[in-house]
């Protein structure tokens, strides 16, 4: 017990020491000049100036008048803050340390579980996103059939209330698979075999949705927290994030949710979504597609299948964002490079950028404020020395969240500097 306490204390102290102090509110107008602005909606403005005041963009273009403090960004690039959907950032600090893991609650149908209140605004992992341009995320519970309710946060905050951008934005449903992995520890072969319980699993979802709907129609005395938490799906105030990969699973999932009265559905995953793009278009389903830095699921798949999947969906005319929901949280700082990978498959750079900015904001329903560099929107963006979608040139000099100039230091940059000083100084 002593040992465990000690460990907790240690983790705590490290985390506490490292966090950057949140930046103060923007008090004066700032103009960034001479930059190449990547708007996030598919367009670029060369030699652009961008003016922001009180946390909002007030002017942008190649011939706007500078106002207030000026930052020369000649030869540099400006991008909207990147947005990471489906992550448990701030819910887990160190994967292998159970005490630091708050992402997966007990239970199969637990929409009432809310990520926001467990979000650690001072996480070292969260802080490490910022020097790569990832400034916002949808914080999402994991596991089970319905994992819980997510909220969207920005990455420079004192606490979770400060961080919240959109509270309880969506409910996350892991659709069952027609195939399942062999339980090799029980002597089954490794690999995939048909899931004999698939229909049973679907029936459980249907029943839960039907009960939730029925519950919402009457005013009952005894509250059912789980059913109550589902109501936003039926009145359209919350979105259903449906995690499904196979063609059959996607069709079953969307049909079931629609039939149950869910208003807004977002497909998350969509490994085989490219085969049913007409269906998705017809039902107006946007896709948060799997990130590119994964291996193909099937041995005979094209080696670059995961690289090009986002492009296949964009080309089909769908609204597409990128997520790395299944990856470790620390990997999320690679979000820009996941998008860059699609460029090598023939998607234009600005379109690739949309996958992690403008499109994602639309899909998550925060596009009134975030995702693109447009007048009236939040001044949440960053300046990079070069192309932010390429590893070599993603070099940030400035970043702003709601107009606040945030620190680009982290626990990691501090250690870097400390040890370089040690060596260079001797």
């Amino acid at each position: 017990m002593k040992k465990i306490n000690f460990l907790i204390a240690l983790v705590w102290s490290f985390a506490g020491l490292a966090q950057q102090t949140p930046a103060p509110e923007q008090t004066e107008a700032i103009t960034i000049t001479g930059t190449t602005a990547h708007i996030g909606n598919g367009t670029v403005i060369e030699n652009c100036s961008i003016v922001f005041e009180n946390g909002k963009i007030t002017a942008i273009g190649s011939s706007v008048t500078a106002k207030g403090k000026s930052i020369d960004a000649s030869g540099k690039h400006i991008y909207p803050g990147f947005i990471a959907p489906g992550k448990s950032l701030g819910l887990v600090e160190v994967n292998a340390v159970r005490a630091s893991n708050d992402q997966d609650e007990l239970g199969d149908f637990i929409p009432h579980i809310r990520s926001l209140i467990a979000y650690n605004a001072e996480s070292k992992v969260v802080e490490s996103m910022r020097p790569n341009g990832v400034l916002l995320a949808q914080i999402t519970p994991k596991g089970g059939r319905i994992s819980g309710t997510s909220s969207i946060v920005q990455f420079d905050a004192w606490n979770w209330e400060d961080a919240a951008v959109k509270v309880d934005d969506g409910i996350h449903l892991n659709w069952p698979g027609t195939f399942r992995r062999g339980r090799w520890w029980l002597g089954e072969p490794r690999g995939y075999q048909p899931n004999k319980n698939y229909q049973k699993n679907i029936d459980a979802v249907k029943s839960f949705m039907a009960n939730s709907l029925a519950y919402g129609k009457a005013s009952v005395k005894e509250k059912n927290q789980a059913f109550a938490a589902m109501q936003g799906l039926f009145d359209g105030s919350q979105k259903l994030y449906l995690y499904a990969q196979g063609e059959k699973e996607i069709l079953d999932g969307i049909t079931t949710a629609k039939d149950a009265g869910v208003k807004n559905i977002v497909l998350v995953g969509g490994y085989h979504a490219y085969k049913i793009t007409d269906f998705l278009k017809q039902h107006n389903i946007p896709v948060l597609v799997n990130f590119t830095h994964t291996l193909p699921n099937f041995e005979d798949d094209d080696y670059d299948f995961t690289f090009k999947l986002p492009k296949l969906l964009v080309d089909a005319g769908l609204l597409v964002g990128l997520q790395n929901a299944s990856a470790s949280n620390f990997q999320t700082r690679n979000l820009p490079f996941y998008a860059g990978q699609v460029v090598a498959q023939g998607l234009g750079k600005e379109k690739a950028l949309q996958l992690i900015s403008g499109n994602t904001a639309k899909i998550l329903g925060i596009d009134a404020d975030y995702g693109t560099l447009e007048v009236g929107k939040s001044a949440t963006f960053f300046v990079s020395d070069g192309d932010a979608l390429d590893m070599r040139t993603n070099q940030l000099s400035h970043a702003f969240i709601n107009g606040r100039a945030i620190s680009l230091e982290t626990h990691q940059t501090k250690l870097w500097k400390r040890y370089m000083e040690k060596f260079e100084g001797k």
Partner: protein
Amino acid sequence: MKLRLLTLALLWCGASLFAQDYFPENDGVKSKNNNYYAFTNAKIYVTPTQVIQNGTLLIQNGKVVQVGSSVVIPKNAVVENLSGKSIYPSFIDAFSSFGVEKPKRAPGGGRSPQYEATREGFYWNDHIMPENKAVEKFKYDSKKAGELRKAGFGVVNAHIQDAIARGTGVMVALNDDGGDADRILEDASAQYFSFSKSVTKRQSYPTSLMGATALMRQLYYDMDWYAKGNVTTKDRSIEALIENKNLPQIFAAGGNGNVQRADKIGDQFGIQYTILAGGDEYAHVDAIKNTNAKLIVPLNFPKAYDVSDPYAAQYINLKDMRHWNLAPTNPKVLADNGVQFSLTLHNLKSTGDFKTMLMKAIKHGLSKTKALEALTTTPASILGASNKIGSLQSGRHANFLIASGDIFDKSTTLYENWVQGQKNVINDKDQKDIRGDYDLSAGGLTYKMAISGEASKPKIEIKQDTLKHKSKLAYKNDWVNFSFSTDEGKKTCRMTGKVSKNSDNLKGRLILPNGKESSFNAIKTTSFEEKEKKADEAVEKPELVAMTYPNIGYGYATKPQQENMLFKNATVWTGEAVLENTDVFVKNGKISKVGTNLSAGSAKVIDATGKHLTAGVIDEHSHIGALAINEAGHNSSAEVKMTDVVDPLDIDLYRNLAGGVTTIQLLHGSANPIGGRSAILRLKWGEDAEGLIFPNMPKFIKFALGENVKQSNWQSFSRFPQTRMGVEQAFMNYFQMAKEYDAKKKSGQAYRYDEEMETIAEILNGERFISCHSYVQSEINMLMKVAEKFNFKVNTFTHILEGYKVADKMAEHGVGGSTFSDWWAYKYEVNDAIPYNAAIMNSQGVTVAINSDDAEMSRRLNQEAGKTIKYGGMSEIDAWKTVTLNPAKLLHIDDRVGSIEAGKDADLTLWTDHPMSVYAKAEKTIIEGVVYFDLAKDKMQREAIQKERTKLINMMLKEKSGGGKTQAPKQKKKPRFECETL
């Protein structure tokens, strides 16, 4: 009461036994049957190649006395005229579990693994049980014996199918009438081995295929040491092993290259095993042939996959579809290549499937002579029992089959299976075969009647023109009863008649639906044999798909060949510089010239304008292309070799090539402070396991520190070490032992050869290099100090995430660092892991590589190198070295690969863009002048895969609609390994 019952039982048993000369007889008078049996006028297969037409087989007292065409029949002979029938030696299965109870799995022993052996007076590893004797567990199973005889078997060699060293088998004749005294032909018939642990024991070691392999090697070293009298204590396992030395040695290896793995162990110790194969040998028959081993081959041809649901069909790999198509050719391919093999029932779900599977093999080209050899003479010779069984030469056991004709013909009926001169009737041979087509006249109408199926259990079909009537047939003791119904079953005609010996026609009593009696007459128009023959001729030859190198999707139809090439106008990253508009000439697998305006001569010219040519990427830390990664059973596993478990069929090898990777170090995992020996592989897609291994591979071993070796992140609390303090002492202990071992060895004294100590001594002697998994600075520092105490240098710290904190000490020690570009936060010890690590170490003069430890990241190592520019500002030249020249240096292969210099091997990648850009694709990946990956070829492969999948899916649909059995779609997938995979 109990005693009386026992006495009665004994008396009863005694009576049923063959009388044995010296046993007292109290239930009658002593009597002997010394009569002969003579089987005359039969076609006799004395051996598969010695066939006597119209011969006589003479047996007496359970043995063959004489066989030939002019045998003088003694007067006291019972004569059976087998005119038109055939006699074969009965079949033998050399790999059986008959009568030996399946060992039961030991109950779960808590969550913590058990590291020590549980036995005393035996070998130190519980899975080594050469002292086991199947005969001691043997209990005759007459029900199973009946099934086996029905399939044609007369003798089986059974053993306890459990453990790595399994002990001896028992050779049993399937003789129901005799007792064990008669039917047990050998009580220690062969010695068996396998790669699988005993289910009855819970000792952890070995947890892996390479561990089992190493254990077998050490066992033989220990046997030698023991045999020379160097051990003062008694080891009953080794003594049994010595005693069993001269028996036939049989290794249950299985497929997936395990035949070669088993043979390699034997080669090292002068033992030629007979090897149980897996059924996929057709795909690498040259390697199988090179083993010179006799094989025992299963007939477990897979069922077609049920592909009627196209979504589900996606889950099946082309590799598995192909195996369905080609597996039945396995016996034929082995036979064609001169591999001697016997067939076994092993791995068949039911003995009843045997004939179907055998017929399938024959349909796929296995000759009947080879089939018969594989069931008679070859298993007899494998068991060293050719003088007793397997043929019908005089003196052999009278184990033979009487059949209506060719035993390998579908329509043939097996009448009798004689074992040790005891008759066992399978089908009544005197019952007439009534199968054929008839014209039936009954009640004033004529019908077409066809009798088919098995001669002993025939089926009937009665038609009026094209209208099929529901009909039934029973045939027993020379009487046929049959009926058919009309008017939707409302009216039934019943018929019965005695089959005549003299006429092929049937006639007899007819009862009409209205109860009136009449007679029927059926005139035979076609005999069954003729019909079958025609049907057989009509059967189309099986359609087979082609194999590739390697034999999975994306394998090449022919192995790619070395080419001379001239790259024109490339941006060339030599290693130390980036040269614009430069040519590189590749000749005979080497880089011959780097310059401008080189002339191509006869070499192929590749226009590389706008493209970048670099040395192929090298991954210092990889776990792809392996069948196992960790031998976690001991805290030191220096005796295991990754070269024992190379898997050339891993699609990730190809995907790595598509990412410009040419060479990897296949490392053991990080479960133990001292891991196993590495394999350095070149990704020569299409070569076998041996062909992938880097020539004159420098010797490496994996070490590990920290959470994994302490077993911090899973439930294991019993293995030393549990702390970093213990890790140091584990190393001190092993190095000291190895030092003492080496000193003794060098002194010329007798010593027990110990593979583990040999390996660790190589480190001390500077002949083997350590690549050590490491995270925090304390342990990194510690290992350097331990090494310095023993006067050697650590070669590489891999992962080395806090290397930056001790970069000065590392530079001073002279150790390299091979790290992740940006991984952290996944466990406690990577809290201070920073992406600036590579840049800091580099700045202090440490040779730095970026590695993957991950099958996905390894195919983008070029991008990971690019991250060192972002994090810490490394120069482009230095950044690129982290995935080419520096890992080559760390692996001691930089004289051959890692940069573009005249004289080095032509291991090259042509990129479409700046090689460290996220926008770059590998267009060609070349190893020793052979193009192993080419974007254009890849496109063709994709199309070929789709075409072949469609073809096989259609074939499987056809099989299903034709009534063939199917299995549910599955995706076979081996786990993807990383360091911690157990």
